[in-house]
Structure formats: C-alpha cells, structure tokens
C-alpha cells in the first residue's frame, strides 16, 4: 500500500518536475541522427572522451573529428527564437544546460568557440580581396588548391 503510494507520487511528480523546468532542459541536437557514441554513454562519459582527444590532438596532431570539441559544437549549438546563436553563458546552450543543473563549471569556453564553424564569416583573404576577386572565387580557388 505504502510502496504503491510512493510510486504514484513519483509518477506524478516526475513529469511535473520536467514540465516546470526543474530538470535540465537539454536542447535537441541541431544536426545528426545520433551522437558519436550511444546517448546514455555520452551523458555519463562525454568529458572523458573530449579530454582524452584534447591531449592527443594538441600533442600528436590527431585530428579525428569524432571527439573534437569543434564537432560537438557544430552539432549541438542551437539558435534562439530570434535566430541568434545561443551563448554558452546562458543555460540555453547545450553545454551549459546540465552543467547549470548539476553545478558543474568548466572553463573551456574562455578559449573555445561556443558557436559552430558556420557562424563565423568565411575566412576572407584580405590580399585577394584587394586584388578585386570576389569572396566566392577566393574560397573556391583556395579550396581547389588544398585538394
């Protein structure tokens, strides 16, 4: 009887908690069908993967996009109602949603971009611009040359 009551209470309270914003509101990923590892694994262990990749990238030039922080942001950064990219300073940013809830503080975004690559102007080449070439031509020629 007692257990039944408790179960009922939890059953009632959980949706209520979620509805009223007590549980973290995690923005949905903007891109991709699934995460780079199963979602429950990522929820628990994302920090291990990124921190590990960080050292391999910086010291060994290992550029596998899988656990790259830039790639996390490329898929997980979202826009607000006004169409502006959400800043990591607010809890509306994916990387700050749970962290605010769980009182986790990370310093990564003092240095790292909290917006995806597409949010930054395509690299303009001042020299080529001065030569009167259009930005598209510049981008294409540089891309071609890199292939």
């Amino acid at each position, binding site marked *: 009887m007692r257990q039944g009551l408790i179960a009922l209470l939890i059953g009632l309270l959980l949706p209520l908690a979620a509805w009223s914003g007590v549980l973290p509101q995690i923005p949905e990923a903007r891109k991709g069908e699934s995460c780079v590892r199963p979602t429950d694994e990522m929820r628990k262990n994302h920090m291990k993967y990124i921190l590990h990749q960080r050292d391999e990238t910086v010291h060994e*030039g290992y550029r596998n996009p899988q656990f790259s922080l830039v790639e996390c*942001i490329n898929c997980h950064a979202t826009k607000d109602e006004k169409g502006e990219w959400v800043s990591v300073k607010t809890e509306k940013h994916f990387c700050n949603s749970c962290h605010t809830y769980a009182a986790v503080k990370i310093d990564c975004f003092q240095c790292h971009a909290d917006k995806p690559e597409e949010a930054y102007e395509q690299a303009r080449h001042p*020299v080529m611009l001065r030569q009167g070439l259009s930005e598209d031509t510049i981008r294409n020629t540089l891309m071609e*040359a*890199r292939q």
Partner: protein
Amino acid sequence: MSCKSCDCNQPAQPERRSFLGGSVSVIASMTILPGLVLHEVKAKPDDQRISDKNRWGILIDTRKCTTECDACVTACHNKHGIETHGRPDKDPQWIRKLKVEDPLTRKVSSFPIMCQHCEHPPCADVCPTGASFRREDGIVLVDRHLCIGCRYCMMACPYKARSFLHEETENPLPHTPRGKGTVESCNMCVYTVDKGGIPACVEACKLEGHQAMIFGDLNDPESEISQALLREGGQQIREDLGLNTGVRYQGIN
C-alpha cells in the same frame, strides 16, 4: 598499445606503423592565379598522428620582402583573431616585421620574425608545467590547457616571439582557441598544416606576389624549401645559440 585512459578503441600502434610505411608524401602543385603557384603537401589522414618523418619549416628570402608590405602580419592576425586593445606594448603579436640597417653599408633589409620553431627550444626548457613543447614534426607550441601564465618562456625566448594574453577573448575562432592568462605564439597554423594546408603568412606573401616565403618539409630533400636551401643556402638568426631553427632566412648579411 591501445588507448588506456578511456574505452575509445583508438587504433593500436602496429596499424599506424604500417600505414605510415605505406604512404608516400606527394607534392602537388597547382596554378591558381597567373604567375602564382601554390605547392601543397598532401594532407595526412585525420586519424593519423604526426611523426618526426616531417620537419616543418619556413624559408624567408629577405631580398624579396619589402618594407611597406605587412600582408603576412595582417593575414596571421586575421586568421587567429588577434586584435589590438589600444595598448601596443601589451597587444599580443604572433609575427612582426623588422627593419634592420647595416651600419657600414647602410643597406636596409626588412623581414618578418616569429617563433623560429627551434629543435632545442629554450621556452620548453624553462617551462615548469610542460606546456611549452615541440611536436615531433618540429612545430613548437604552448599547450594552453597546461599553461599557468608564468611567462618564463617569454623571458627565455631569444627572439621575443611570445606574448601574454592580458584580455579576455570576445569571440574566439573555432580553430584558434585563445584565452586570457596564457602565453601564445606562432603555431605555424598547426590546424591548417595538419589538414595539408600552408600557414597564413606564407599564403599571403604568395598571393601578394612577393613569394618571399616558402613553407615545407625540411626532412624531404625533394621539397621546394629543401631545394632552395640546398641551392642558395640560408641562415638562422642567432645561429651561435645552436638552436637549429625551423625558420631560416636568406639575404640578411
């Protein structure tokens, strides 16, 4: 030797070895504008690690560099989001132009100077946390995750190539994270180089039509940079220090 610190199943050593042995570095060149040829080293696959098979370097021909031009500086600072805060003595500077005059002949030469990517970097010797280090392929970096901002390396560097970041970065670029309280310097555009591209300064110099800078692999005798060094020679600034720099100069005597 698979990765132990997490269960990410990253490739074991032997596979990488055989992969390395199998791949040959290919140099492709391509004309993109009249009179302009970009030499590109073929990109390494993203999941391959760097090795001491390569030693990246830059050769600067000061005879082709002009006093008025600062395309290399602008391109570098654009690419890495380096801005002025109106305090020139404290603004970060990854590359700068120098003008030197021979007191006897009054001959003026002009050239850019940046981290010289030493084989024996004094910055790494004095770093108390191991943040300053030299990658196997010769690029000298600050691992900003380890840097505590003590600035010993700035004192140790004979080229004054390093800066301390005094201000918060408003809007860091995705591939150039930078943050207040750490030391930074030329990273030879490490992200771009890992992807098979060339540093922004060298690219700008080529596009500007001066062609005073060559980027390439000093370990590859066939590379453009090695060929030019073989043909015409090149000097290190402060050769007496025996640092074996990756950045070399021509025509500064």
